[in-house]
């Protein structure tokens, strides 16, 4: 940005138009969010359905546009924003996750009696935030995306106004979120001080002149990494995850475990594996340790959980640990294994959350694991789908979850991290225990509560998409694999 005064006098209209076009999908979603806000002011009997239809439509539009834009890499807004196969891949995950969340929200909002248009608008804003995160190539823009996403989710977490757990979760999330953002910002500012730029590309060249053992650089790297690890819920920055997962409305929990996480991993990959890959020696050992701790804590603590959402919170921590192994492997295969994992994880997680929403007994009640008891007796189909999602989360073939884990392990063993691979598989055997426990409840225990299960078309769509994704990724993994590997330059 050295020649700022000179360049700013003449505005290159073509470049602006091109930049606007490149951010078309984001703009579509923002229009959708505003429209949702306005539509929510119009009283209508079927407002809820209309709003979710609008959201899904906008997401499909944006996805189509992303698909056609993704053909060629291009930068926008003076190199702050990029569209490449990598960002398009992650955007597809985000679209998928958000669309499925929207579809499963309708019923939940009616059950909890909090139907409001802002919900959908905020969800779309959160989506835009995550989309900006995956496309940004400038630390400032990354931060803006991150905050947009986080602020929307803070509000969504506290959406159940009458529910103290929801309020508490929201407040906790704000405090922890602000704290982690501050740490990250500090790291970013140190980077700016060291390299004189916030742009990742320029930083890449500036790094060549720096000593890797410079304590300031180490500090900057670790601070930025810690901020991002907060977002993915890695140990020891995981404390917020269970409380917030438990307190948030279930569809928002589902959304949180997919979209912001995928976006945060995308940012980690973009910063630390691609543009600033030089920094790798600084963090790789820490990352290995954190990954093992994260997997271990997630797996062991999940064993004793009594609330299904808390359990899934710890399970998501364990999964984040497994994902980080891809970072440790560091190879191209490692990255594409993470990308594949995130896609498959989206299917299975949203699937199981859809089931949780169906089992929800209504206003102000928590979700004990016992809700699953005897599900197989009255709802064989639902029970079978849950079985599939849970075995997939546990990593049992022939489901997608197995292939996801397998591919990460492949990358790991390829780089010679055999001990890590052994630890990872042993911990996933521990993790299998608590997934199997739910299956046991469903199939081997008598039904307890008489939750009236009412399957509507949108949630059925979610279930079918999730089932198809989970199964297909297990049976025909090469389609998904080509998609993920092909998205890496």
């Amino acid at each position: 940005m050295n020649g700022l005064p000179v360049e700013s006098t003449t505005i290159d209209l073509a470049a602006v138009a091109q930049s606007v076009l490149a951010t078309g999908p984001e703009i579509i979603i923002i229009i959708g969010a505003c429209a949702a806000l306005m539509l929510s002011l119009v009283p209508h009997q079927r407002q809820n359905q209309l709003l979710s239809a609008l959201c899904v439509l906008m997401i499909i539009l944006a996805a189509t546009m992303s698909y056609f834009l993704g053909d060629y890499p291009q930068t926008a807004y003076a190199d702050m924003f990029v569209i490449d196969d990598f960002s398009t891949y992650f955007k597809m995950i985000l679209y998928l996750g958000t669309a499925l969340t929207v579809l499963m929200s309708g019923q939940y909002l009616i059950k909890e009696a909090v139907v409001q248009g802002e919900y959908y608008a905020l969800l779309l804003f959160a989506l835009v935030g995550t989309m900006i995160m995956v496309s940004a190539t400038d630390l400032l823009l990354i931060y803006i995306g991150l905050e947009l996403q986080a602020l929307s989710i803070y509000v969504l977490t506290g959406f159940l106004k009458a529910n103290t757990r929801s309020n508490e979760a929201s407040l906790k999330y704000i405090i922890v979120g602000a704290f982690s953002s501050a740490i990250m910002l500090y790291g970013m500012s140190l980077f700016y001080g060291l390299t004189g730029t916030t742009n990742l590309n320029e930083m890449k060249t500036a790094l060549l002149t720096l000593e890797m053992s410079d304590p300031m650089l180490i500090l900057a790297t670790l601070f930025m990494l810690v901020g991002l690890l907060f977002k993915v819920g890695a140990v020891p920055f995981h404390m917020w995850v269970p409380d917030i997962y438990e307190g948030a409305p279930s569809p928002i929990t589902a959304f949180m475990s997919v979209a912001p996480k995928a976006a945060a991993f995308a940012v980690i990959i973009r910063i630390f594996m691609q543009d600033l890959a030089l920094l790798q020696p600084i963090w790789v050992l820490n990352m290995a340790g954190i990954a093992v701790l994260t997997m271990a804590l997630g797996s062991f603590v999940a064993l004793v959980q009594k609330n299904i959402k808390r359990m899934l919170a710890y399970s998501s921590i364990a999964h984040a640990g497994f994902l980080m192994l891809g970072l440790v492997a560091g190879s191209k295969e490692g990255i594409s294994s993470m990308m594949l994992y995130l896609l498959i994880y989206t299917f299975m997680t949203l699937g199981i959350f859809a089931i949780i929403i169906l089992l929800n007994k209504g206003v102000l009640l928590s979700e004990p694991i016992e809700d699953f008891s005897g599900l197989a007796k009255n709802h064989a189909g639902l029970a079978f789908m849950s079985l599939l999602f849970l075995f997939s989360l546990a990593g049992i073939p022939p489901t997608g979850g197995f292939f996801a884990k397998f591919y990460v392990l492949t990358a790991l063993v390829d780089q010679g991290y055999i001990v890590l691979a052994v630890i990872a598989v042993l911990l996933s055997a521990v993790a299998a225990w608590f997934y199997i426990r739910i299956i046991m409840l469903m199939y081997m225990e008598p039904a307890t509560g008489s939750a009236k299960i009412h399957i509507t078309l949108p949630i059925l769509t979610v279930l079918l998409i999730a089932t198809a994704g989970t199964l297909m990724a297990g049976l025909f993994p090469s389609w998904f694999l080509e998609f993920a590997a092909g998205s890496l330059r």
Partner: protein
Amino acid sequence: MTISFITELPVLSILIFLPAIAVLFVPFLPSNHAVRWFTFSILMIDFLIATLLLVSFDNSTAQMQFVESRSWVPSLGISYKLGIDGVSVLFLFLTALLGWICVLASWNAIAKRLKEFMACLLAIQSLMLGVFCALDLFLFYVFWEAMLVPMYLIIGIWGGNNRIYAAFKFFLYTLAGSLLFLVGILVLYFEGGRTFDILALMDISYELNLQKWVFVSFLIAFAVKVPMVPMHTWLPDAHVQAPTAGSIILAGVLLKMGAYGFIRFSLPILPDASHYFAELMQILSAVAIVYGGLLALAQKDIKKLIAYSSISHMGFITLGLFTFTSNGITGAVLQMFNHGITTGALFLFIGLVYERTHSRDIPAYGGMIKAMPLYGIFLSIFLLASMAVPGTNGFVGEILVLSGTFGVNNWAASAGVLGALIAAAYLLGLYRQMLLGPIRIPGAAKVWDLNKRELCCALPLLIFVFWFGLYPKPFLNILRPTLTNLLEQTLGAGL
């Protein structure tokens, strides 16, 4: 004898996926009766295909036959590759045979959620057949691991009082074992030039140190499945709690997979490590034979007794395999088949009497041969076969294993002889208490002798007891080229 059309069809795929596809239809069948007949006919067709394979198997070559190969995940070198040799064709046949017998054995025994049960039986059948056909390590692992799911459900839903604990234990033991196996597979994959093709991996000679580590990771998986002492504790629980069909599948096929793993992977791919660990394996096997037998001697529950006897008998198999003698290995493979038949039959017969009396308490029984003469006769024959009396199938296998072991490891062989004596003690004890003496029936339940359906299950097993006992030659012919080849692979390398 060769039948031309079956070499042109993807016959192994049909064999494997017929039951899997049938699962999709089960939920839509109108009545329980229809479900039973449907499952039975599907598994019968599968059995006929397996018989056809056995008959048209070319026993002059050690090459894989009926090979099918398609790429599956090309970028990782994973292919969908199937093929069978002399060992696998025999186990395909055994699996397919026990499959329909299990349906008959569960005809009335399964009262609740019959559709789901039959779906599980079909699914597990598919996966077990897949394990024996897979020639790609990844494919093998998928089948091997996926098998846990239906078995877990069979034990956990339709099992006895303590079924949930047993199902958990079964699942976690086997899962933990096989996950290390997965890491071992990946190491072989990368060291072998990125291929999962089992035949290609056999041609690679890995360095000894690597072989040792991989061998240990494989050993844990296989030793849990076999099971070898000290990884055996899941077995009595699983067997006691499982419904009859579950026990038959467990004893008949699932346990064999551990031994099959040794034959298919450990010996040919890791020959040097196999030799390195041979003595340890022989000792562990000898311990299993004696210790399993002694445990069986102390049991008051029929199923537990047979479960511990399984541990003892499986010890003979691992003992035979790790002698690296022609007799030892041949005996081990025969013993695998025989144990499937005999122990399958014993669990079937325990199930039959349990259906009538709802008791497995040995001292509560007496004089059953008078109360149910036909049942008594059959049971005594199967007990004798399990005892390895000459003229029955058990004898052929055990004598070959022992003759192979003498000269290699005399201590282990002596332990084997001792184990055979102990087996005689507990099996004859069971025979005396249950079948002889004054009639005592637990709970004064009404008993009736075998009906036609039960005879249909028992007869084929009886036929194989004597066929193997008196004229095992056709089966030996099928095995010979494969086992000779295996022996060359294990001996040729290194030593």
